[in-house]
């Protein structure tokens, strides 16, 4: 082959597209490196206490500074669990209703509405959460529960401001429900039609048929919940407006707290004043990075595995 021929054979397509692909991969790797590298001083100074201790001492005297992220990590996990507990029944019901019960016109309207909800700017959930949802929850849910059931540990803390794990969890639940239901809808529609026919033909009522079919997509529901959890973990502004932003390590639903993302949103602005706070915040980012990555990969993996099984 002559040189000229070789030059002609080089695929121009790859030359144009590969750098873009490489750029995206490098960008992602770079992100991981930035978080890891900048978090390193925190691990050197505090060791594992960075993640397993609840302490936040920001002082002008550098030697007295101490930062441990446990409260924020706990808050992230706690609020996200509340969120998926809210989203689970809602998104299943929504998917079943949309696919099996709703007449065609309502069905399309409902799907568009849930897509609007999924795409709505999160700050709008935030402002609604602060001025509408939190006061409502405080008055009609938190106070009554605390008043009558405060012997149960999770209801024991008084809802002083309303800003709490509970508020954040409920708001997150509302936000991730359309997202979770979109995944379930996709899964529910993938059920081969013959199964549906078979279920109805075997004399089941609609309820029984639905129950059977839901059993069939159980793994997809599970992976949908994992992905919804991942989305709740990453949400920032809406949460930071309603969680109360307090270093707290409490099981009490009505206590204020912190999440990793709201911690970063709140503290980064003034972290530069202190000697050791910045690495701690990068360590927080790294934790969020890894939790987010692990949760999303697990969710995607499980969903794809299920999808493959269905196709066969």
């Amino acid at each position: 082959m002559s040189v000229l021929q070789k030059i002609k054979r080089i695929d121009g397509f790859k030359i144009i597209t590969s750098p873009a692909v490489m750029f995206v991969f490098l960008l992602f790797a770079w992100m991981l490196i930035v978080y890891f590298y900048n978090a390193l001083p925190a691990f050197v100074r505090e060791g594992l206490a960075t993640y397993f201790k609840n302490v936040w001492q920001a002082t002008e005297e550098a030697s007295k500074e101490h930062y441990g992220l446990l409260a924020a990590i706990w808050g992230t996990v706690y609020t996200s669990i509340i969120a998926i507990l809210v989203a689970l029944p809602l998104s299943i019901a929504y998917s079943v209703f949309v696919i099996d019960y709703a007449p065609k016109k309502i069905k399309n309207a409902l799907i568009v509405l849930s897509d609007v909800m999924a795409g709505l700017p999160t700050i709008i959930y935030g402002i609604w959460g602060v001025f509408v949802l939190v006061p409502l929850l405080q008055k009609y849910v938190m106070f009554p529960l605390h008043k009558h059931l405060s012997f149960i540990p999770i209801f024991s803390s008084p809802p002083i401001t309303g800003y709490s794990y509970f508020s954040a969890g409920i708001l997150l639940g509302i936000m991730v429900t359309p997202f979770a239901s979109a995944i379930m809808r996709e899964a529910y529609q993938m059920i081969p039609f013959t199964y549906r026919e078979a279920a109805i033909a075997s004399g089941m009522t609609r309820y029984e048929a639905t129950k059977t079919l839901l059993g069939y997509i159980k793994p997809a529901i599970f992976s949908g919940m994992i992905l919804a959890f991942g989305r709740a973990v990453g949400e920032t502004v809406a949460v930071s407006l309603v969680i109360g932003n307090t270093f707290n390590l409490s099981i009490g639903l009505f206590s204020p707290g912190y999440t990793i993302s709201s911690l970063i949103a709140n503290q980064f602005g003034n972290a530069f004043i202190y000697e050791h706070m910045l690495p701690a915040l990068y360590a927080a980012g790294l934790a969020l990075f890894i939790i987010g990555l692990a949760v999303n990969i697990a969710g995607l993996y499980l969903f794809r595995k299920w999808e493959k099984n269905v196709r066969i």
Partner: protein
Amino acid sequence: MSDFAIETKKLRIYYGENEIIKGIDLKVPKNVVFALMGPSGCGKSTLLRAFNRLLELNKEARVEGEVLILGKNVYGNGVNPIDVRKQVGMVFQYPNPFPHLSIYDNVAIGLKLNHLVKSKEELDERVKWALEKAFLWDEVKGRLDDYPASLSGGQKQRLVIARALALKPKILLMDEPTANVDPIGTRKIEELLFELKREYTIVLVTHEPMQAARVSDYVGFLYLGKLVEVGLTREIFEKPKHELTEKYVTGVLV
């Protein structure tokens, strides 16, 4: 220069582990209509796509042996499939003019992107020439800027033929070109084949033996990846040598 338009030597084609074409030696003379017939799934479309290396779009496909186009092995070292495809035009089973391009642009696109014309006038002329060749000019000359969606199935297929002709290929491959066209459209395309073979060699894949009998000079009967019989169309249909061929042309074997 070879006497044959297309010649294959020990051609084998695999899809993954499956052998689809099982060692075929075929000679297609110049300026004829050569029909490749056989029941569906016999590998005729696959064989056709080996001639212009379009098989390479399918990552599973693997070719062994040689395909000589006008005497040159297209699977030889250093052969660029792009050059092969410029010489060998193709028409498909589903009439597939580009839906987002006007009638004019469908014919012009190959010329433009391959930089085969120097001026707008030359392009206009070549588009007109190709459409005339495809017996389509009179039907579309007033609406060259319309989209192909406004054409009938047969017209669409003739537009695809014009698109291929515009590049002035030596050979035309046609993969069941009338399978999705109504009877009137089919007749027009078949008439067109008679005209075209004066200047081009045409390889026509068909699953209707009657179509092969109507339009071809030579015919090859393909069955389960093997070339059962090949020869002059008249001879094959009048006195087939092979029992399978006889069954096929009389309609017993489908």
